[in-house]
């Protein structure tokens, strides 16, 4: 899928994150550089503990950046106060791994979707308009709004909740979506549904999606470019076709050889 890249929306220069100090000092992310473009699907692949979620959290502004600059739309990102932070979060949203802990359990689903509408400047819309927007968002993810109204999030199944997260994204229409292991808690069937929905959403509102995953098959299927991460550093990056089918770095080669294959031989002797 070699397509023309849009303009750069998010650029990281020498980003470093250090946790702790003294004896417990750990460099979770070491001097990484990246450049994400409009409408691009990116995967950051790595094993547990490689620092991929730390990058996601830094991009989201949930934790600070120790060193380096993050450029959003060409400007250095500024989230120094609450209002600026809120402004930034209109442009960047996330879908997390565990749908069960992603919702406020005291809020009904209606409130949750209404919040999204209010946040994006729909506060003054009439009830009818709001209702139509919510219905549209639910039908986009194959849920029926009529069945969800007056329910609490824990009354839904895992797959339904994950789709509701996507309905939220549909209402918010962010520039960037970070999907942190969005399919690791669901089975292969729901995985296909969720991926198709995210890609459809990408086409609809031309957003950038950053997948954080350890599933190389998924990274290969969805992404335009792939970043492979080991111990806080990108060991290899580039178009998905090049990185996954013709890996150069030893780490990438090992990672790919560990995934079960169906067309080729799966070599068990290498562990």
């Amino acid at each position, binding site marked *: 899928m070699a397509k023309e890249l849009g303009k750069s929306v998010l650029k990281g220069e020498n980003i470093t994150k250090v946790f702790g100090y003294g004896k417990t000092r750990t460099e979770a992310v070491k001097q990484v550089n990246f450049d994400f473009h409009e409408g691009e699907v990116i995967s950051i692949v790595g094993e547990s503990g490689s620092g991929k979620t730390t990058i996601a959290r830094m991009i989201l502004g949930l934790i600070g950046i120790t060193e380096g600059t993050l450029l959003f739309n060409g400007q250095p990102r500024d989230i120094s106060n609450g209002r600026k932070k809120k402004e930034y979060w209109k442009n960047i949203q996330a879908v997390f791994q565990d749908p069960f802990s992603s919702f406020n359990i005291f809020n009904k689903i209606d409130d949750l979707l209404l919040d999204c509408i209010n946040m994006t400047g729909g506060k003054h819309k009439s009830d009818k308009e709001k209702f139509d927007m919510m219905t549209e968002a639910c039908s986009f993810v194959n849920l029926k709004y009529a069945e969800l109204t007056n329910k609490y999030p824990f009354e839904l199944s895992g797959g339904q909740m994950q789709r509701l997260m996507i309905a939220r994204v549909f209402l918010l229409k962010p520039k960037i979506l970070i999907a942190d292991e969005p399919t690791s808690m669901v089975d292969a*069937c729901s995985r296909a549904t969720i*991926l198709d929905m995210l890609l459809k959403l990408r086409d609809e509102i031309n957003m950038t999606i950053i997948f954080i995953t350890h599933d190389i098959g998924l990274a*290969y299927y969805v992404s335009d470019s792939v970043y492979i991460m080991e111990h806080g550093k990108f060991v290899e990056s580039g178009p998905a076709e090049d990185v996954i*089918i013709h890996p150069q770095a030893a780490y990438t080669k090992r990672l790919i050889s560990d*995934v*079960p*294959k169906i067309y080729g031989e799966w070599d*068990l002797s290498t562990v």
Partner: protein
Amino acid sequence: MGKVMLEVKELKTKYVTRFKEDVFAVDGVSLKIEEGKSLGVAGESGCGKSTLALSLMGYYFAPLHYISGDIIIDGNNISGMKPDDVRRKILGTEIAYIPQAAMNALNPTQKIIRFVEDVIHVHDKGMSKKDIYDMAVERFRILGLPPEVLQKHAVELSGGMKQRTVIAISTILSPKVLIADEPSSALDVTSQKMVIKMMRELMEKGFIKSMIFITHELPLLYNVTDDIVVMYAGQIVEKGTAKEMVFDPVHPYSKGLMGSIIVPEEGTRDVQLEAIPGTPPNLKHPPDGCRFAARCKYAKPECKVYEVPEKDFEDGRMYRCIYDVDYLKEVYGRNG
């Protein structure tokens, strides 16, 4: 044809809930596994895979109840045995079971060797600690686990190591059937590969005589097992060898499952993923007729009326659909 290790005939089990609404999670399952063979069970979440695993052990505790059917291990019918007898006579020697989060089963205050002693003492009270230790060291060495593990506590081991240790402990008495329920789902790819390699070794060295492997990850199943059955709503809808099932599925549900496979291999990127719409039916009130009809692209009105029997075709393959094989293949060919 080898000796039949495990034979299951029309097994039915249910979960008894409050308000007298029973959930029929395994509804008429028949299986046969020969010596030295492994069988994979595939299906979505909630289609009865894990309940099947629990039912096959013959170890029933509330809310799971046995209704009817036979479980025959090496000529020995264990259905209807009391749970206590099952624990003493069957578990460990005839059948071993590895649940998904097996690594969390290790008591953090005990050394690994104590678990080995526990397992052996249930079946053979007279064995001395020295003998048990020697036996465990020998077995661990063959399986590629460092024997020092035996003197460690569970917290000192990594996730993958714990999982492999649990597998080694539960197969120490060389059971005839090993039931592995998602043994590698919680692990990263490298540890997963080590677990799979170890299970292959168990089979090759004859420490287990046959294996049932349950997972929803089809590429993994394809690489591990000889045969695959696909389960839907408590029933088996298709059975065949791993290769046939992955590349040439017949039942529309299997076809959908195989359409959701993602592997990082050349040329798989442009394939459109096929997702099956909807969710599995509620097993409190299983639908009439074909259970998959509500989600099936090819369903016709009759599908929702008549119960579909298991149909055999070619050798050893079985499917459960009212259409002929030739018709289904033609339809799939047309849709690409």
